[in-house]
């Protein structure tokens, strides 16, 4: 089964193709195909995990060329090791639960078949991402999960908020992917391969080190920042809650957003080679975790609280992995790697459960606002119990799964005091906001009577998956019990097994922190000893910051979105008026130049020609009168000429007087001839 593990992603792909092209019109058949094939993928994943346990995590690699003969070979392949096997199982379990749950949640939806097709496509992409053996392939599936996330967030696209959220998610994560692409380019150029193992060999052998390695690591981490909704690109995840709730559970809580964490874990060798890159990872994780937890404290939308909680928990994992890298780069091992991946697994279960529970609540009361809920425990037994289990788990209460994984995360901050303090603070906030949510939703008096009256427990198809996930939220963490010597930490590890062993002091501290968080929520929202409103007024600035999500959306709108949209208009004006204006100006000048030439041609060139003709004709017109045919006139000219010649011989001055007189006489006689009426008809016509 292990060597055929590449089939696991292909089952849901087959489901997608079948539904889109063949069974779209038969709704029940479509959902049956989708669920059947994802269950098949789940069964196959179980076999893979068993086989992997049998070989103690010894990896398997298979690959086939995609495009060879480029400067590097691009290939598609699979790399199965312990981490892959665990992730395959997590993804298929959550996906199966969510698809079954959707049977109840999405009933009567007009785009039912399409919904299941999209879920199948998502599952295919996510499994492909997990199974990839190189950065090229992971990037392909990385983008495909982005696409399916876009399609599913905007599934109810008639709502403007939903289509906005889908677009925002796609573009924001793509900004992170810019960095990912540059990271891949750096690896291509400086390492010459994108295969994980070949790159890691270069790192461990020291061929790849220093600034290049740090740059590659940080740029690749940008991809994780986008996908895992880390600061400063975390803004898309809360908005993504516009999608159907099962989608939020699957994609925006348990699997896709965990892809960033998976990427960091997968490329651990890369980060572990550079303390700088790892430190960046750890700090981003810590900032994110703190910011998100602080925002979750005051939100009123049940899904958004869970979304910020997700961001915060992902930050936890990223931080643990980063701290592991820092420690590793400095030459010592820590629990961080195991903590991050372990929490990735346990979080998937209890967070999926929380979302599905929230979905069950929303299904019952048709609102997301916890101010309109209250007292629902009386109507929804299973939902309430499972939701409390998940909340206790995420808060880190002994002996639920969240306790063990969170404990390891706290342990991994050993040696980094600032990280440890903030981590504990976040743990406190987590316990507080989760139980604020629980108490406001399920206990007390119903605040909206009408909604409460119509509330009812969800159908079996929805409570069934809740129960399965509740079971996992309790027990999944037990594979990593610190007393187990052949537990999670000796299966999924980086470089060499690091078994931390139980830290009783830390366990006690973190339990105290969690319990005090729950206790504070209890006094405020259950006992109502302290007024929440009074607290909000007391810490007005902090409350406003938290309630308005630290104004990230507003700031981004002002410094990024508006300037870009403004620049598009400026450039469009520039293009239409300056660049094209220049072209049109050249055209216009050519036309004007032609006009000028035409004027010159008509009036100067042609004018000269016509003018000469005119002159000739005018001259000849005048001269023709001399040719009168009168012998007397000719004799007069001859005599006049003779006299003139004689006079010239005698005196020059006299000659001139004579000549002038002659011309006057000639002109006068000409004038007389021209004015004679019988000559009018022969006037010259110079127009011709």
């Amino acid at each position, binding site marked *: 089964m292990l060597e055929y593990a590449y089939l696991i992603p292909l089952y849901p792909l087959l489901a997608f193709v079948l539904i889109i092209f063949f069974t779209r019109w038969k709704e029940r058949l479509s959902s049956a195909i989708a669920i059947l094939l994802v269950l098949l993928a789940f069964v196959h994943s179980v076999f893979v995990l068993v086989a992997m346990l049998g070989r103690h995590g010894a990896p398997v690699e298979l690959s086939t060329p995609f495009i060879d003969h*480029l400067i590097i070979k691009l290939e598609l392949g699979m790399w199965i090791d312990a981490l892959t096997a665990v992730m395959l199982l997590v993804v298929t379990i959550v996906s199966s639960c969510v698809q079954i749950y959707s049977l109840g949640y999405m009933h009567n939806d007009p785009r039912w078949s399409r919904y299941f097709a999209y879920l199948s496509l998502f599952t295919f992409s996510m499994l492909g991402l997990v199974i990839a053996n190189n950065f090229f392939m992971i990037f392909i599936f990385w983008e495909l999960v982005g696409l399916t996330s876009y399609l599913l967030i905007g599934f109810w696209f008639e709502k403007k908020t939903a289509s906005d959220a889908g677009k925002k998610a796609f573009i924001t994560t793509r900004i992170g992917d810019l960095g990912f692409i540059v990271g891949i380019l750096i690896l291509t150029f400086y390492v010459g391969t994108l295969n994980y193992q070949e790159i890691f060999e270069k790192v461990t052998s020291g061929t790849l080190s220093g600034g290049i390695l740090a740059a590659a690591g940080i740029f690749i981490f940008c991809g994780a920042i986008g996908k895992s909704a880390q600061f400063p690109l975390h803004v898309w995840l809360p908005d993504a809650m516009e999608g159907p709730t099962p989608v939020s559970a699957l994609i925006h809580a348990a699997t896709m957003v965990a892809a960033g964490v998976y990427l960091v874990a997968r490329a651990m060798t890369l980060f572990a080679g550079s303390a700088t890159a790892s430190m960046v990872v750890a700090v981003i994780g810590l900032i994110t975790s703190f910011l998100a937890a602080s925002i979750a404290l005051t939100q009123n939308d049940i899904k958004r609280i869970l979304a910020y909680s997700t961001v915060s928990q992902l930050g936890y994992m990223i931080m643990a992995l980063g701290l592991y890298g820092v420690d590793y780069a400095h030459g010592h091992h820590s629990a961080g790697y195991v903590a991050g991946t372990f929490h990735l697994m346990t979080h998937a279960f209890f967070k999926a459960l929380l979302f599905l529970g929230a979905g069950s609540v929303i299904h019952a009361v048709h609102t997301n606002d916890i101010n309109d809920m209250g007292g629902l425990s009386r109507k929804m037994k299973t939902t309430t119990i499972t939701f409390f289990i998940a909340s206790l788990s995420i808060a880190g209460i002994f002996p639920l799964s969240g306790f063990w994984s969170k404990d390891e995360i706290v342990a991994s901050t050993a040696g980094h005091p600032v990280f440890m303090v903030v981590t504990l603070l976040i743990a406190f906030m987590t316990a507080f906001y989760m139980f604020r949510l629980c108490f406001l939703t399920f206990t007390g008096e119903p605040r909206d009577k009408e909604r409460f009256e119509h509330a009812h427990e969800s159908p079996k198809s929805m409570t069934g998956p809740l129960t399965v996930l509740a079971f996992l939220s309790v027990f999944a963490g037990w594979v990593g019990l610190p007393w187990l010597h052949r537990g999670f930490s000796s299966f999924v590890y980086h470089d060499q097994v690091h078994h931390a062993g139980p830290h009783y002091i830390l366990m006690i501290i973190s339990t105290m922190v969690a319990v005090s968080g729950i206790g504070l929520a209890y006094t405020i929202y259950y006992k109502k000893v302290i007024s929440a409103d009074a607290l909000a007024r007391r810490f007005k600035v902090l409350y406003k910051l938290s309630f308005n999500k630290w104004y990230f959306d507003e700031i981004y709108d002002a410094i990024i979105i508006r300037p870009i949209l403004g620049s598009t208009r400026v450039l469009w004006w520039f293009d239409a008026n300056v660049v094209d204006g220049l072209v049109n100006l050249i055209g216009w000048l050519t036309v004007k130049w032609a006009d000028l030439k035409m004027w010159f041609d008509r009036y100067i060139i042609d004018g000269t020609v016509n003018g000469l003709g005119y002159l000739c004709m005018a001259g000849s017109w005048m001269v023709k009168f001399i040719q009168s045919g009168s012998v007397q006139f000719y004799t007069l000219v001859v005599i006049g000429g003779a006299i003139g010649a004689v006079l010239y011989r005698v005196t020059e001055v006299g000659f001139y007087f004579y000549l002038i007189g002659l011309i006057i006489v000639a002109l006068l006689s000409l004038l007389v001839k021209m004015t004679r009426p019988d000559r009018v008809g022969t006037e010259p016509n110079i127009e011709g």
Partner: protein
Amino acid sequence: MYDYVLSSIIFLPLAGFLVILFLPKNNFNLIRWVASIFSFVPMVISFYLIYDYFIVYSGSADMVYIEGPFKWISVINAEYFLGADGISVPLLALTGLLSFLSIIASFNIVNRVKEYFAFFLLLETGMMGVFCALDFFLFYVFWEVMLVPMYFLIGVWGGPRKEYAAIKFFLYTLFGSIFMLVAILVLYFTSEPHTLNMLTLIQTAPGLGHSLQLFCFAFLFVAFAIKVPVWPFHTWLPDAHVEAPTAVSVILAGVLLKMGTYGMLRISWPMFPEATRFFAIPVALLGLIAIIYGALVSMAQKDLKKLVAYSSVSHMGYCMLALGAWGSVTALAGCMFQMVSHGLITGALFLMVGVLYDRAHTREIAAFGGLGVKLPIFTGLMVLFSMASLGLPGMSGFISEFMVFIGSFSSFKLITALAVLGVVLTAGYMLRMVQRIFLGEFNMAKWGGLAEMNAREILMVAPLAALTVAIGVYPSPLSNVMKATLENLVNLVAR
């Protein structure tokens, strides 16, 4: 049968042109089917050619299917000389496919049908000829032959500003052609014995002096850059694309733009290696400007067709960036992939815009909203092509952009890193467009009467969708076709 295979794909459409001239003017269906047949056969041959080339010749860098050189105009040594290699074969197939699909898409033309299809077939002859000609004079003739039918196709069957757009397109291209002609004359008179044979010139032209090389390169570049179009020579494109009828926009974007980049790959780069290396950075910079600038201007568009037109400017920028990285087979292969992929995707987008315009009689993005409710198939296909255009993996646009990036990164670190920004900007304007047209509230009163795509319309975009996905999923056949030729090209430029 190979003896005249290239001539047959060039001149079959011309034969169709002549046949149509003799058909009765009012028998629309006869004219349409004759035109389809005379473009269908060259398409089949061009597909067979790519298959045959892949099987038989893909390892060889030499020209194959050679015809000639036959004496043609012996006074100037012009010859009839055709041939194809790994660069031209994919483009011939693209031309064959898009011409046929465009003719199918033109079945709804009712005005002066006979002239329309006659001009269309003449256009196809010109395009096929450009991709096969190996003699400079012949190349120039085909290059110009294609202009005339294009001028009339835009000017007669176009939109409201058709006269302006047609004359702008014609004059702009002609303006570039003059530069090409000068360069051709320089090459002719400096070669000894005087020749117009491109293959010979590729061998001898590098012997020209440095400044003469730069001069010829720059003059040819202007001619080709206008066609691509490279920023800032691009403003004829939005006007021509928007005013042209749908099928003509498809040909403009799908094939004509590629003639510019084809000219660079076939002529400028191997003929003037020194100049190519000299101008590498400016060329890449022009590519970067086009990518970012085109994307930003696209984002500001209110007219759907203009948005697609400006996206072409942006997408052809990737080709220029890759051409700047002359030393990398990967980059040049990326350039070729981008040419093919852009032809498929943008051709399809124009067809889709045409389908919408036929029904709604407007292309204003703001006029729509929520069409996804009413037109699921149209929406699905449009989203598919938008995703392909923004470079989503699994489709051809991703492969080409990725190859361009990894190829160019070895030559230009910063320019390539900045060019990656184009990926987000493209996503920005494509998704905005998708959202404003297909998502949101559906206006039942206004668009309730819109009909879903009919079978003919689905059939004309389906091959494009299938090929886009096929190349995206399994690109290696296409890359194998062009591999040897491009390796040879890189060696020629490195001389």
